[in-house]
């Protein structure tokens, strides 16, 4: 069980690490793409104006241009402006493109558009070669960046990378925790169904055992010895019934299937009721029971699940009985201790306290003793009320203390 959980945790950690590496690669790829794209800002588009310039040569007869087909194919046009601002050569120049330019015109179109035609220029010894594309074919925008801002670009990328990493980690954690929870719930349901089924199947045969043993115990035609044997069967089957009930309740509390039914409760009244129940149920010979309630305990009130706390106290009393087969005197009481209500049960049998287990629990995983199911349940009930169970050596024997916040 633990091995499987560890394996799942490792798989999850691997997934998270892989996601982080993926994010890193994507971020680096993005950075590279940006650099490459930025490098292309100043280069030509559609056609290389350098190639066009090479194709245009000045001869004695004027100009020779060898890339006319290429221009036509690309729907481009070209012209050469001399130092006076006159167009001295042109190929496919639209009619709305002027034939003379002032210095201001040139300054304008080299960066923007010439009569809405996107243009590229190349400076030649004999003037300025202008290559134009059809209107609306290219979007020109100057890319100007402050060098100080440029210096912070790595920081921006690092920040974005971290943000992306956090998002991936968060998403992964969310998905994994949901999956874990779902699987946990499925396992819990399967387990609780199973325990429910088993305890249900035990109860009916146990009814028969208890029923017949009870009848035999009271049968006047049996000898006292036989009736006593029947009484032993009856008592042991009652113990079995308590175990099944404890097991069921333990499971229900474990898997939070039993919501607390909180109500206002008087701890002193609860202690008296538990004592009365134990005495009315017939405490065996050799055992004595008394309550110890200081006057201030009478005014205490708790918001708690009465039947569950009653069960906890009954289990603590039963624990005293089970651990002192020779008989003992049991005292139960309630008092306030700061912001806590303390419900306690002590015997005078001088027995040993169950060894504390790991993980802050007062009990070992098996409950600490042969009769541990009952004590584990006490601890669970205390915890479900945000309290705790403490078992320690008292003045005369074992002291069980349930602390519940007031």
């Amino acid at each position, binding site marked *: 069980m633990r091995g499987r959980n560890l394996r799942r945790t490792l798989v999850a950690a691997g997934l998270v690490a892989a996601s982080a590496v993926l994010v890193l690669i994507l971020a680096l790829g993005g950075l590279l793409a940006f650099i490459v794209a930025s490098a292309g800002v100043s280069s030509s588009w559609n056609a290389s104006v350098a190639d066009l310039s090479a194709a245009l040569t000045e001869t004695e007869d004027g100009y020779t241009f060898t890339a006319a087909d290429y221009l036509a194919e690309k729907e481009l046009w070209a012209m050469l402006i001399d130092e006076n601002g006159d167009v001295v050569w042109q190929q496919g120049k639209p009619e709305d493109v002027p034939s003379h330019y002032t210095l201001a015109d040139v300054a304008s179109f080299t960066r923007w558009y010439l009569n809405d035609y996107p243009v590229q220029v190349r400076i030649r010894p004999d003037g300025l070669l202008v290559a134009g594309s059809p209107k609306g074919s290219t979007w020109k925008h100057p890319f100007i960046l402050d060098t100080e801002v440029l210096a912070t670009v790595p920081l921006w990328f690092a920040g974005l990378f971290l943000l992306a990493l956090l998002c991936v980690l968060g998403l992964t954690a969310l998905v994994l925790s949901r999956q874990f929870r779902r699987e946990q719930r499925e396992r819990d349901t399967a387990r609780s169904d199973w325990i429910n089924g088993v305890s249900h199947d035990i*109860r*009916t045969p146990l*009814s*028969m055992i208890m*029923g017949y043993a009870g009848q035999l115990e009271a049968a006047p035609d049996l000898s006292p010895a036989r009736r006593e044997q029947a009484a032993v069967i009856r008592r042991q*089957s009652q113990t079995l019934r308590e175990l099944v009930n404890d097991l069921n309740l333990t499971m229900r509390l474990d898997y939070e299937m039993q919501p607390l039914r909180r109500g206002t409760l008087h701890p002193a*009244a609860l202690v*008296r009721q538990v*004592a009365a129940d134990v005495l009315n149920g017939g405490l065996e010979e050799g055992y004595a029971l008394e309550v110890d309630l200081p006057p201030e305990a009478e005014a205490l009130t708790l918001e708690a699940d009465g039947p569950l706390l009653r069960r906890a106290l009954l289990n603590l009393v039963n624990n005293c009985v089970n651990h002192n087969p020779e008989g003992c005197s049991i005292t139960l009481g309630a008092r306030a201790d700061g912001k806590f209500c303390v419900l306690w049960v002590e015997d005078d049998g001088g027995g040993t306290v169950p060894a504390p287990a790991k993980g802050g629990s007062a009990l070992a995983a098996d409950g600490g003793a042969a009769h541990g199911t009952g004590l584990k349940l006490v601890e669970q009930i205390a915890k479900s009320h945000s309290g705790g169970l403490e078992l320690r050596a008292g003045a005369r024997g074992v002291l069980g203390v349930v602390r519940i916040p007031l």
Partner: protein
Amino acid sequence: MAYHILLVDDAPELRRMVGELLEGAGYAVTLAADCAQARAAWARQRPDAALLDVMLPDGDGFALLGELRRDGGDVPVLFLSARDEDEARLQGLGLGADDYITKPFLPQELLLRLGAVLRRVYGGPAREVLRLGDTEVHWGPGTVRRADGTEATLTAKEYALLKKLAANRGNIVTIDALCEALWEGPMVGYENTLMVHIRRLREKIEADPSHPKYLLTVRGLGYRLAREERP
């Protein structure tokens, strides 16, 4: 005339055991293994009470209760269930079952609870007079008739107090439970008043109120009405 009980449970051995137990206690019993048999027996026999299992092969005991209630009015119904959570479900459904007994149960538990439900619903001779040695408490007029022929009348509080103790005769009833029966609230502050009522009650029912034989104090817990001593 013996009360007639309808017992519905799908486990044949349990049915037989509980059937024998009820017959041994003087009840007339009709057995049914499922909802269909239960409906038929209900219509034919008109029992005085029913003990129903919750999980039946052809249906659910709670649904069956709904049907029987519509058909048979206020006949008391007790559930026998093998599952803890059924009790919560029963409360959730708001069905008016008269009691709920979780398996496994002791024969005596079943008989006591069935008897209590039958007494509550149909009344019975045991309700009329409470005997405390030579003293008789007559619930009807609320009077105490002592051996010497004198009579005393119980006040409303004394009546409620004695009723609560008599209903749990032999068992300790805590002062909290008594206060709740008397004042329908927690006992804080009422303890002394309760003691006054107890003292006055003792004066009416005990031959020697300073040394009570029946209404006994259980120190720190409450009071107990002692059972009649058997000769």
